[in-house]
């Protein structure tokens, strides 16, 4: 045994402390008068010897603890002389089982060739050799295998979707070095197609691994590579039931490609697009896919983009793209002001919104508050009022029905709200807050609303509002409001008073803005924030989104309307790419999918079905052959072979290895410290 920091061993002299204390200490005892001493005398000898034994044992225990602490600080190492049996040769095989190895030519698949090479290598090794096999894509290590076991493992090895991880292999090699064998025992064989993706990873490795011998073999085709792949697909538009998708197609081989690109979604097929591209060429195509007019319900459409006339690698000829299409969004906004022109600024903002692609149709209409009628609720989805007036009080019952049926009431307040009307609306639980005392003092708005995800307002608009320096907008006055117990305050003034209150009622909602139209929106309109603020008030609007992941990514799907999708479901089950049923978790507004287990579709088993397309990482099937000389240089850089290593030249005793003992010492110390009080107490008996 040796010590790295031997100076700490001097701490062992601290045992002198308890020893001196033991020698000097006199036993502490109580003095008591007694009468029956003749009956005590017989037990006295036994008791005295027991006490001496106890004191000695406790002294020994405490000295041991001190010595152990000193030795622990000195970092003990155990020098083990390697037995002849430990000097067995060790072979580490790094075998590429990534998806690119599925490429096959006339001579068979790359993966079969790799297996054959690995088997030949194992056969050529000594019978007593040990084998460690690492599947580079799946990251699995099989260690300490005999020849027969290694052959069986190679036979059972399978291709997995995904890329190789060379860094894991190198760090695994270093671990083997440290723990079990000296570097000069370890020989490495690396078998891969050495695609550009793999070579990039190898180049990025900073610290070389020390081995006795390195062998590598690029598994490549002798004929020109014939492979094209769809690498990326993005939805760029959705109008009138037609999806427009941009698709990137790459020729990863040396053979000119003439293929057809089609999109298929639940039986709807696009017109095939003839594509042709030369070696190593990348092209972008636009595919139009008619999926019919969707109904009012949101849906998720699985779109498979595929290349016809397969090449030598089929896995990358299909791209899985799930498209989330929100429900048909028509919105009618009724703007009720004191007069027809009071809501002019809001009208302008809604008109601007209607020209965006956020809504299928967005219509707005201005009316004078006095002309507001119950029949208007039949047309409008959102009613925006410039203040709480008598008319609103009169229509309280109709407004309640309107909101409960799914409508939205947005109320600003004026300097003179009508208390009776406000109370009528309040009693019917329509108002999110009841305006109370009027405060005629200026106040600034908080820079951003609260996080409003899932709160009934548009969260994208809420986030974008922070870009408009709203905290510089000065309000002239506001009310001290009483918040409804079921309502939430979504936005505050900087003095702590509420600005926007939100309340759900039935299927609809009600918003109270604690300021007048002129004050808030008027000031905001001077900036571009009016459109964002208007969108914020009108509620959530969803856009077409893609759910598309690589097989190495964590699959997290946004769920816009959790209540609609998973109402009453405690467990969400999904079918993963391998066809197995797995459990998913809903966290906030996201659905977390466990391991997708391959490429293809991940879909929820409950209706409506949500899809996620899982594809290969970009560039994984780039089959460009490596350049021999370049590859040799890279391998020499990341593997330091036997005699060249600095370690061996430094004269380390090669038939010995050091094993750190600090864990054993630490555990012994902990056990002794736990045992000390128990033992001391026990010995007193």
């Amino acid at each position: 045994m040796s010590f790295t920091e031997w100076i700490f061993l001097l701490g062992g002299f601290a045992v002198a402390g308890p020893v001196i204390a033991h020698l000097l200490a006199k036993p502490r005892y109580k003095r008591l008068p007694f009468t029956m001493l003749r009956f005590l005398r017989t037990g006295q000898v036994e008791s005295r010897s027991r006490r001496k034994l106890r004191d000695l044992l406790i002294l020994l225990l405490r000295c041991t603890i001190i010595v152990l602490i000193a030795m622990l600080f000195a970092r003990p190492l155990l020098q083990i002389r390697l037995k002849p049996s430990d000097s067995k040769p060790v072979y580490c095989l790094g075998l590429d089982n990534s998806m690119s190895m599925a490429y096959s030519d006339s001579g068979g698949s790359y993966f079969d060739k790799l297996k054959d090479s690995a088997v030949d290598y194992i056969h050529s090794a000594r019978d007593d050799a040990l084998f460690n096999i690492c599947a580079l894509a799946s990251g699995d290590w099989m260690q300490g295998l005999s020849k027969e076991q290694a052959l069986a493992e190679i036979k059972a090895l399978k291709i997995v979707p995904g890329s190789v991880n060379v860094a894991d292999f190198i760090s695994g090699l270093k671990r083997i070095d440290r723990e079990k064998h000296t570097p000069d025992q370890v020989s490495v064989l690396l078998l891969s197609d050495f695609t550009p993706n793999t070579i990039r990873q190898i180049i990025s490795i900073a610290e070389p691994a020390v081995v006795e011998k390195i062998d590598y073999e690029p598994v490549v085709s002798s004929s020109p590579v014939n492979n094209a792949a769809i690498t990326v697909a993005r939805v760029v538009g959705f109008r009138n039931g037609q999806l427009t998708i941009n698709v990137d197609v790459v020729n990863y081989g040396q053979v000119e490609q003439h293929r057809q690109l089609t999109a298929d979604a639940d039986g709807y097929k696009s017109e095939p697009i003839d594509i042709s591209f030369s070696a190593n060429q990348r092209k972008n195509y636009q595919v139009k896919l008619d999926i019919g007019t969707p109904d009012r319900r949101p849906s998720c459409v699985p779109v498979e983009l595929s290349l016809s006339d397969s090449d030598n690698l089929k896995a990358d000829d299909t791209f899985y793209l799930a498209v989330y299409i929100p429900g048909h969004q028509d919105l009618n906004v009724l703007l009720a002001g004191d007069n027809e022109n009071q809501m002019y600024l809001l009208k302008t903002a809604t008109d601007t919104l209607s020209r965006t692609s956020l809504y299928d149709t967005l219509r707005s209409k201005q009316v004078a508050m006095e002309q507001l009628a119950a029949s208007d609720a039949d047309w409008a989805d959102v009613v925006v009022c410039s203040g709480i007036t008598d008319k609103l009080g009169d229509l309280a019952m109709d407004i309640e029905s309107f909101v409960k049926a799914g409508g939205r009431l947005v109320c600003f307040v004026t300097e003179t709200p009508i208390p009776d009307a406000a109370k009528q609306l309040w009693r019917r639980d329509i108002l999110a807050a009841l305006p109370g005392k009027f405060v005629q003092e200026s106040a600034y708005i908080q820079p951003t609303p609260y996080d409003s995800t899932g709160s009934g307002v548009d969260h994208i608009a809420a986030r974008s509002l922070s870009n408009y320096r709203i905290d510089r907008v000065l309000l002239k006055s506001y009310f001290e409001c009483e918040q409804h117990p079921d309502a939430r305050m979504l936005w505050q003034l900087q003095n702590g008073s509420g600005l926007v209150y939100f309340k759900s009622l039935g299927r609809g909602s009600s918003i109270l803005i604690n300021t007048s139209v002129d004050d808030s929106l008027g000031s905001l309109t001077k900036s571009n924030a009016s459109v964002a603020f208007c969108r914020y008030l009108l509620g959530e609007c969803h856009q077409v989104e893609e759910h598309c992941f690589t097989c190495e990514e964590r699959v997290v799907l946004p769920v816009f309307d959790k209540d609609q999708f998973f109402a009453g479901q405690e467990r969400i089950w999904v079918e993963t790419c391998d066809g197995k049923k797995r459990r998913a978790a809903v966290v906030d507004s996201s659905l977390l999918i466990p391991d997708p287990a391959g490429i293809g579709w991940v879909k929820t088993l409950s209706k409506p079905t949500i899809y996620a397309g899982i594809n290969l990482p970009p560039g994984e099937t780039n089959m460009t052959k490596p350049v021999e000389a370049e590859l040799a240089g890279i391998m020499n850089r990341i593997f330091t072979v036997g005699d060249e290593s600095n370690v061996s030249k430094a004269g380390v005793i090669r038939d010995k290895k050091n094993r750190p003992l600090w864990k054993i010492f630490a555990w012994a110390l902990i056990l002794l410290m736990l045992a000390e009080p128990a033992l001391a107490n026990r010995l007193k008996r």
Partner: protein
Amino acid sequence: MRQNRKYLDPVFLSKLGNMSLVARSAVEGFFAGLHPSPFHGFSVEYSDHREYHAGDELKFVDWKVFGRSDKLYIKQFQQETNTTAYILLDSSKSMSFAGNGPVSKMDYGSYLAAALSYLMLSQSDSTALILFAEAMKRYIPPRSKRTHLNIILTALQHNRPAGQTNLAGVLHTFAETTKRRGIVILISDLLDDEQDIFKGLAHLKFLKHDVIVFHTMDHQELNLDYEGLIQFEDLETKARIQVFPQSIRDGYRKRITEFLDNIEKTTGNSGIDYCLLDTSAPLDRALVAYLAKRKRSM
């Protein structure tokens, strides 16, 4: 009953302070708590009539005679033959041991002696008190007058434990100097050579005394319930021993049991009444033992 037993509790008696009060409380508490018993009324028998004088208790008026003669006569009773009780109270230093409690063996023995004296004198028995350690320290000769109680109680109250025990010597001396036989009540912790004690007791029996031995022991002496390292110091010899009581407790209890069994067996064989008293226990056991003995001796 429980309320009455309070007066027999040594801890309660120790709070009374005055020995006369101790004696009366103990005995009255004992009788008040006693069930109908064979001891009731054994000491009186009708003797004669005399004329009633003012101040006599009406309960002794013979109403039948009054009916016939229209004169008040009092019934008079003749005391039964008196006996003499000798109370020998060990006053050696070892009797001052009090263990963990407030009552020492000396206190307990004193209460017992006081209660017995009260009981005896109320029955007109002659009562003597002998306080001893290495030798007889004080001898109060037997008298049957009620006022004699005060002398005994005062002696008990002023008695202080001192000196070593020489029980055997005291017993022999007592046997040789006492001519009239009676009930000898020995209150002691018997911390002397066992064989010598037995010889002393046998000497008393030989002289036809009725002997009762009240062996007072402290709870700690019986059980050794101490913890931790303790240096015990002998109260009489000042010898010291350092031990862990917990490590020798079992052996100690075994030896104590053997000691007590030996005493009980030997005294039983000699016709001596033996009563082991734990100082934490009430006094009634001792009083019952005495009354039973007295009845047998009449």
